[in-house]
């Protein structure tokens, strides 16, 4: 009898094949479950001209990639920092014409991902009808419904080259479990895997396979969708691993403040990414135990 192959990978193996100009999709939403360790690794590799996708919301993950010069096109329905403000890198790059913005609604991206997941050529959404989005984004096609003839938006299947996501726990075969909400990560993995791309997950903790078999209803993403698992404790930091530890608001505000000037942005990227070649070094330099204890405590209410 053979044994199963472990998908626990080095970062080099996991990001092998990632090239300039590819389509990268990032899991999580807003400040939650963002695979920030993997984002920093991509920046360190100085990959250029990425088409970056995230749904429903992106914040520091995509903004940092933009500021670091990795991005040619943004496909994100909401790029911003919610109650903390707008996305500085995104705003500036869009105003300077340095990135293309693929204007869209959540349901356009989801329809495109779902089409890929189901091996269908395209998906449809009602969103867009009556708006300017078809003019702004020619990939969104105004069509007539096959049956009723009413106007709809059609969009081709979206097949990312690489998906990155962060879960609270995983086993060495790639099964993933989240403590809180998993947002669109399952659809992200399905669409990428079915579209022929690669799916890489970082996890706060590698747990035994038995942890999944004893309660398979709790598994959020099956190992069959995952290519590589990397153990990266606090790998979402400064974002949350939803339900495990809260995002660090002060650390996110630090990014926003730094991003007010070009030099500030460069300094931030140097300080938080380029000068810390490994996750361990990042944690040593930027994350103190006290803030982690607080981040854990902040997932509860009295």
């Amino acid at each position, binding site marked *: 009898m053979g044994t199963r192959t472990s998908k626990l990978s080095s970062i080099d193996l996991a990001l092998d094949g990632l090239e300039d100009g590819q389509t990268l999709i990032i899991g999580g*939403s*807003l*400040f*939650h479950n963002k695979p920030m360790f993997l984002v920093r690794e991509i920046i360190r590799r100085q990959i250029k001209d990425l088409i970056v996708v995230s749904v*429903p*919301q992106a914040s520091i993950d995509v903004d940092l990639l933009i500021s670091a010069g990795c991005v040619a096109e943004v496909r*994100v*329905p*909401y*790029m*911003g920092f*919610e*109650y903390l403000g*707008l*996305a500085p890198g*995104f*705003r500036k790059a*869009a*105003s*300077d*014409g340095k990135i293309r*913005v693929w*204007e*869209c*609604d*959540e*349901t356009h991206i*989801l329809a495109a991902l*779902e089409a890929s997941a189901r091996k269908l050529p395209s998906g449809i*959404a*009602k*969103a*867009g*009808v*009556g*708006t*300017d*989005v078809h003019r*702004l984004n020619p990939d969104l096609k105004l069509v007539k419904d096959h049956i*009723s003839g*009413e*106007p709809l938006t059609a969009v081709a299947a979206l097949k990312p080259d690489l998906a990155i996501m962060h879960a609270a726990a995983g086993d060495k075969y790639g099964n993933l479990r989240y403590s*809180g*909400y*998993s*947002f*669109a*990560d*399952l*659809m992200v993995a399905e669409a990428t895997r079915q579209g022929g791309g690669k799916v890489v997950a970082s996890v706060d903790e590698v747990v035994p396979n038995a942890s999944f078999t004893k309660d398979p209803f709790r598994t959020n993403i099956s190992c069959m969708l995952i290519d590589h698992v990397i153990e990266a404790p606090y790998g979402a930091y400064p974002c*949350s691993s*939803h*339900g495990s530890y*809260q995002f660090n608001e002060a650390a996110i505000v630090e990014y926003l403040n730094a991003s007010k000037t070009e030099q500030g942005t460069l300094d931030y990227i140097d300080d938080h990414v380029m000068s810390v070649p490994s996750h361990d070094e990042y944690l040593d330099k930027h994350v103190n135990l006290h803030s982690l204890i607080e981040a854990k405590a*902040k*997932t*509860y*209410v009295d």
Partner: protein
Amino acid sequence: MSIESSPVAWPELAAFVLSKELGDGEIGSPGGARSEIPLAAARLAQLTHAPNLMIITSAAGFVANSVGKAPAPLFHSTMDYRNIYAGTETVLNFMSVFNTPRDWFFAGGLQVDSFGNLNMTAIGDIKAPKLKGPGGAGLSYASSVARRYFIYMQQHSKLSFVNKLDYVTAMGYGSGPGDREALGLVGGGPALVFSPMAAMDFCNVTKRMRLRSVHPGHTVEEVLDNTGAEIIVPEDVPTTALPDAETIEILRTKVDPSGVLQNLKGAR
């Protein structure tokens, strides 16, 4: 009495006014700009006149009802994990979020026009915009399906209330009656616009925005001076009613015990 001297902070007034729009048994999503306010509005409605109202916390898929549950703090974000403690009974898988009823939702925008169309895309030329907005989010989706929706504008100015949007991100009433029906939009369109100065609804016949009430401390003239959109002004425009003491009590002890609304930037 002006809002400055009133017993409630401005976001509390907003939550109160919006809560009165929500009916018992309805299902809807807070969200949009400043989601603390719609989330508080929905919880306040549950704890006052709408005990069967169900809240879906937008993209986080938590379905909640606070009635008879221990009070939980209000958080800035509907995606905060701690909303799980605020009466969450179901966590929807992500795709199911889009398969569930929306009697209402809340929208924000960079610009709104007199037919309730919204711009979240950009101000200025799209190739080099003066202000790049955060994007369409789920506004176009939700505005196409929700039975009705509420627009929350953070600023009331001639730049935000305009006659012509730079870009239409989500369609309200288009250019007037019949436009939604002609395009097969099943939702009913916007019902109310709330700004720091006033509340506006839409005329049933013309679908044009109409001044409904002016908040304490503001006047009709002031509102019009700051509105670039052509809106209907009835002869008598009442002052926005403030919540009674009992409602304030519920708001401050059960909906927002940690005073998030009172301490929002610009709350007073």
